[in-house]
């Protein structure tokens, strides 16, 4: 019988909560740590972001980034109740820039961070880093699902994280991609994204219980390395692939990328409309957590699962008036929903897009 790849353990740390439940409550209550930073990281120009106040590393020779991925993984491993030292367990790390704040000063290699994490848990397998721009977390879940389906592993621990630094902030400033105010996903007056810090983890196992990671796809726009396709080509193709396994009438909502840049949100609205999903409620979480890059796909999937468990469509913080060319159903306020499945979307630089389909399982 084909395996049912299910999410059996969760971990999440953000500036508004250090457990998945805390992070969910913040999103449900519309709380956020997005604020103006005037000289943080030695940046010449002020920026608005969601950053951890407490940047303490765990004991041992670990950076703040390494500490975050280990703490998120530990939460997920504990809640799943698995033995991470087993050779039937594999680790995947999703990040874009990892320890980049130490460039020129110490080891910033992404696979070395992943290896330190696996070693912390005495895991014997080589860890894999998925670094697929802003869709990294989603791509890491796709990769984890595939590894489960081969039968080589009993559990895959998928961990994603990003910490911010002058390197990333100055880069996004150079691209004029940052808003100087709290971001406004899908809003008519949106003018850019806010960066965010987070770590999140999901343990995948073969179980009849819990959320099933039912399908996933990654598709390229083949258009431009830093601008999304105007026709939503890649996002639409990824959506189309996962929809083969979906019952549209059972979809509770779609949780899109919703970065609040002009082009991203417009592109996603077009892709959702092209896929015939313009009537499905959508909410975006960037107004609460900022754009958490390598963590986003995992963090936002976890929040969406809890939301769907609570039969809740979360508010899209920052959204007031629809500002995309097709009438997608962006939810401004918290409200109830039915259905037992949802879709997670992400898109990123390199023209890459991803879609995941989650389906609710039996009760524990």
């Amino acid at each position, binding site marked *: 019988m084909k395996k049912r790849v299910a999410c059996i353990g969760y971990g999440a740390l953000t500036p508004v909560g250090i457990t998945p439940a805390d992070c969910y409550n913040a999103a449900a209550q519309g709380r956020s740590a997005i604020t103006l930073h005037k000289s943080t990281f030695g940046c010449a120009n002020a920026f608005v972001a969601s950053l951890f106040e407490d940047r303490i590393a765990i004991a041992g020779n670990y950076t703040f980034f390494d500490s975050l991925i280990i703490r998120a993984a530990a939460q997920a491993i504990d809640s799943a109740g698995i033995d991470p030292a087993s050779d039937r367990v594999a680790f995947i790390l999703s990040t874009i820039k990892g320890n980049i704040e130490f460039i020129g000063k110490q080891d910033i290699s992404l696979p070395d961070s992943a290896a330190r994490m696996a070693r912390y848990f005495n895991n014997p397998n080589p860890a894999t880093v998925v*670094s697929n721009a802003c869709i990294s977390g989603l791509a890491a879940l796709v990769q984890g699902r595939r590894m489960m389906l081969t039968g*080589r592993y009993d559990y895959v621990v998928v961990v994603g994280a990003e910490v911010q630094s002058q390197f990333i902030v100055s*880069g996004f400033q150079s691209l004029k991609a940052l808003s100087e105010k709290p971001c406004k996903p899908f809003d008519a007056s949106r003018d850019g994204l806010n960066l965010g810090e987070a770590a999140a983890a999901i343990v995948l196992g073969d179980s009849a219980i819990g959320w099933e990671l039912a399908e996933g796809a990654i598709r390229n726009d083949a258009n431009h390395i830093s601008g999304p396709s105007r026709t939503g080509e890649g996002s639409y193709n990824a959506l189309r692939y996962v929809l083969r396994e979906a019952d549209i009438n059972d979809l509770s909502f779609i949780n899109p990328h919703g970065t609040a840049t002009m082009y991203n949100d417009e592109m996603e609205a077009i892709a959702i409309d092209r896929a015939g999903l313009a009537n499905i409620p959508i909410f975006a979480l960037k107004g609460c957590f900022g754009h958490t890059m390598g963590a986003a796909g995992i963090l936002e999937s976890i929040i969406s699962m809890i939301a769907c468990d609570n039969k809740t469509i979360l508010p899209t913080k920052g959204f007031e008036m629809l500002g995309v060319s097709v009438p997608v159903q962006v939810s401004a306020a918290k409200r109830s929903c039915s259905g037992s499945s949802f879709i997670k979307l992400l898109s990123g630089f390199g023209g890459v897009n991803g879609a995941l389909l989650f389906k609710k399982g039996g009760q524990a």
Partner: protein
Amino acid sequence: MRIARSIDIPSGATLSNLYREHKIEYPKFFKMDTLCKLGFLASELLLEGDADRFEPREDRAVLMFSRNGCMTNDINYEKTMADYPSPSLFVYTLPNIITGEVAIRNKYKGETSAFLLEEYDEGRMWAVVEEAFQDSVTTSAIVGWIDCRSESEWTCKAYLIER
């Protein structure tokens, strides 16, 4: 799964010469960082002469592996950071841009992914490629172990893989 074609670009080769020798016309090449130039050239050499080269297709994935990702370009960007941060360098500070460049050039609308491994590990690389074929749309893939240790020192092996 089988290796249909393979190519190796020796470390230290002059990439602009290779570009000219193969009569490639793609001015964007000169804007790329070294990692992307390698990925671009490797895919050009793999696909040279294919009749249906630039027909849009969704069934071919681009999967790139390395240890260092875009580290050499990260260093180049970091030098501009305090003064005038360069947007054209920053866009190459992502390990997956190499897959996007190959997809854009060849109009590949399929999967593109970048993976970083602690060391060159063929077993792990082929396992990931095999896993990628679980996507039923994917029937072939451009695969590379392309690792830049500096602007002039690299390993660049690329393959055309068929399901």
